[in-house]
């Protein structure tokens, strides 16, 4: 077991290196320069040359690649070009926690609402209940987050004035309502659909009938026997969403004015802020690797069959 996870961890290293290489060359191949601002005048060539020299952008690309990789291995991703008073590490420290809080709250909401709704949709004899839940989940999956966020802001911010239209005043403030809900909607819908399907599958299995025949209370059967078995596919779905929601949604953060990691990434791309683009992409890759590992680990804990397979 331990060796399996060690292997998986080691396999993450080439993944990170490939991500680093790809993003490095794609960023540098994109036309445009980090120094050209949106001002009226083009940057004087002499000024551009001096800035390039100061940040070693005039070195051959392979030299920059090796230098940057050496720095990155020491944990030094260099200064941000967009805000030269800050390093990439400062930026991660400032913006990632906001996205983590927002994404954490959204995932929590998705799971806390998704599992009961999914179960309800599967168990309900009433077609209206199942139908209503299915409509919500279909909408949640098919509406892009930027549409949901815009609609919610216009309706509840501009129209009703219940929530601010823009900005961030912490997780426990009205400013987080729209972004948390917009972010939660897609994973919520996915959890509902997935959990509903797997509950329906489990429902007619022999061991459930046995449990019923033993006279166990319906709630015990639903939670302990059906729920636990149906949970495994849902965990996969949650894992897939977690990595991208925790690191920050580009759309939701930009539209709702959340100073998070996703928004900063978009700004960095527009500004050709190479160190920040590379740094943020690597963090994102790291999250995907770690969360996939956690999902695998959770199979191991949830499903005795996996444990026996590994024991063999």
């Amino acid at each position: 077991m331990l060796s399996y996870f060690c292997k998986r961890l080691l396999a993450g290293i080439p993944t990170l290196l490939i991500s680093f290489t790809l993003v490095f060359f794609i960023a540098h191949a994109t036309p445009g320069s980090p120094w050209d601002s949106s001002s009226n005048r083009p940057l004087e060539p002499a000024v551009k040359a001096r800035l390039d020299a100061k940040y070693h952008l005039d070195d051959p690309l392979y030299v920059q690649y090796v230098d940057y990789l050496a720095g990155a291995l020491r944990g030094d991703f260099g200064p941000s070009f967009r805000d030269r008073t800050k390093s990439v590490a400062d930026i991660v420290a400032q913006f990632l926690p906001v996205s983590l809080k927002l994404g954490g709250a959204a995932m929590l909401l998705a799971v806390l609402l998704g599992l009961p709704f999914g179960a309800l949709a599967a168990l309900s004899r009433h077609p209206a209940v199942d139908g209503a839940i299915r409509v919500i989940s279909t909408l949640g999956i098919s509406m892009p987050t930027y549409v949901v966020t815009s609609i919610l802001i216009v309706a509840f911010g501009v129209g009703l004035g219940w929530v601010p239209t823009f900005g961030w005043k912490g997780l426990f403030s009205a400013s987080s309502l729209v972004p948390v809900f917009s972010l939660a909607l897609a994973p919520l819908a996915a959890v509902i659909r997935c959990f509903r399907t797997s509950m329906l599958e489990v429902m007619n299995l022999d061991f459930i009938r046995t449990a019923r025949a033993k006279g166990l209370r319906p709630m015990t059967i639903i939670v302990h026997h059906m729920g636990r078995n149906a949970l495994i596919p849902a965990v996969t779905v949650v894992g897939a969403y977690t990595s991208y929601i925790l690191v920050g949604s580009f759309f939701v953060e930009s539209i709702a004015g959340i100073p998070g990691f996703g928004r900063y990434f978009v700004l960095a791309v527009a500004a050709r802020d190479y160190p920040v683009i590379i740094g943020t992409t690597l963090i994102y890759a790291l999250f995907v690797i770690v969360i996939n590992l956690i999902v695998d680990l959770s199979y191991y804990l949830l499903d005795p069959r996996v444990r026996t397979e590994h024991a063999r």
Partner: protein
Amino acid sequence: MRLSHALMASAIALWVGSTQSAVADFQGVFRMIVGEPRYMDPNLASDFSIYVNAQLFQPLARIGGDGQLEMLQAKSIDLGADGRTWTITLNPDYKWSNGEPITAADWEYSWKRILNPKVASEVAVFLSDIENAEAYNKGTITDASQVGIKATGDYTLQVVTGKVAPQFRAKLALPYLTPVPKAVVEQFGDGWVAPEHMLTNGPYKLVSRVNDQSIVMEANPHYGGKKPAISRIEMTIASGDLCTAQLRAYEADEIDFVTCLPSQDIARIQKDPELSKQLDPFPLAASEWVQYDMTNPLWADKRIRHALGLAIDRNAIVTAVSNGTARPAVTVVPESIPGGSSGDAIQGSIEDARKLLADAGYPDGKGFPQFTIATTANRGRPLIAQLLQQMWSENLGIQSTINVLEENAFRAWVQSRKTEKYDTAIQGWWSDYADPANWYGDLVLSDYRQNHFSNAEFAALVEKGNTEPDPAKRLEFFRAANKILEEEQPMSAIQNPTDLWMVKPHVLGLKHEGVLNMYHIEEASLQ
């Protein structure tokens, strides 16, 4: 079960409570949304950061409505009989935000810092009239004492230009040419702009700044000018679609001031009986045009350029792009700039345009090669490109394709056109300072937009205008240059943009200032 109920209730209470307290705080505070300033250092910023910095830092003077300098940090600005020596007497009432005096040495240090090649400031170009400034900035001389900027007394600054440069007067009012506190900059380096270190000379001081989130300013108690009526400014930082974010927040009463409107909302605002009264348009001394690569043989025949220029329906463009808030432009240099005159525009109908094209060898556009219109993806320019494509096709029978490039990629594309050929591009120019030298000299002669227009007569007139001290004679040179520019038609003008502000009725006295359309919150008050 009870415990979870209690937790839920307290979470809701926390949520609601924090909203209510936030609303209560807004009294007496000016609230707005701005883009994240790229630089808080006034000597480096040339993009929209200047609007944020202008609340904190102040130049020597500003240009008044009559075109004359109104003194701010300077008590007087006098030009010597040689036409090159400017003697600037500072007003000692103005102090740094910690109460220490702002001396001529601070000004000398700051302006030389702008020129210092190591600082790599984008605004160094605005000081290039000064003796040896360009040489020092380019690194051909390393001794800063040779630059014509000298503190000759505690409060006297002497600036000598390389040659007679009447346009330097207008540059003295530029928002970038402010002092910075020498001791603080030297101690903290780039970090001097942090709220805990920054000293300002303007009406406000920086209280807090959270990157990409907020900027808070409060009145500078040591400001030498009139004390601001608004004591606190709270700026929320937006990225991406600033205009949409501003309008939403404005309509929800979260902010007091909007500096631009999304084009799709203009018609609704104009029709709304309340909101339309809060609309505050400001015609800019700016232009947008389509330009032809003058080194490309495709455009060698002047009649073709005239034909394309005459075939543009400018009213249709301003209606489609900005609901008629921009103004159709028939000449490149706006009429508000001395020298500019719409009377110089080429005259003719669509019929005349067809005839010109036929005379050039392309009757009904037959045989005219398909060409490309390049444009940036923002500012409604892709729509302008589509309209041009359609008008040229329908009116002249010539076909074009459109190449839309992301903003930063477009700037790189424009720079690379210095040596590479292209067909046409949609471009624009916003006045940097209120002087014709900024258009005929910087824009056309310096070829900032890679138009490659070269005309010896035009160049000679502009050179004469740039160094002529007598304003009336100077104007004549630029008037003559403008006629050549329009007759040669290296660019076909399209529109003069208009800035659309919205100001809440309880905000009084917020005025537009200068060609950059600056705002000065210290002049405003809250009812």
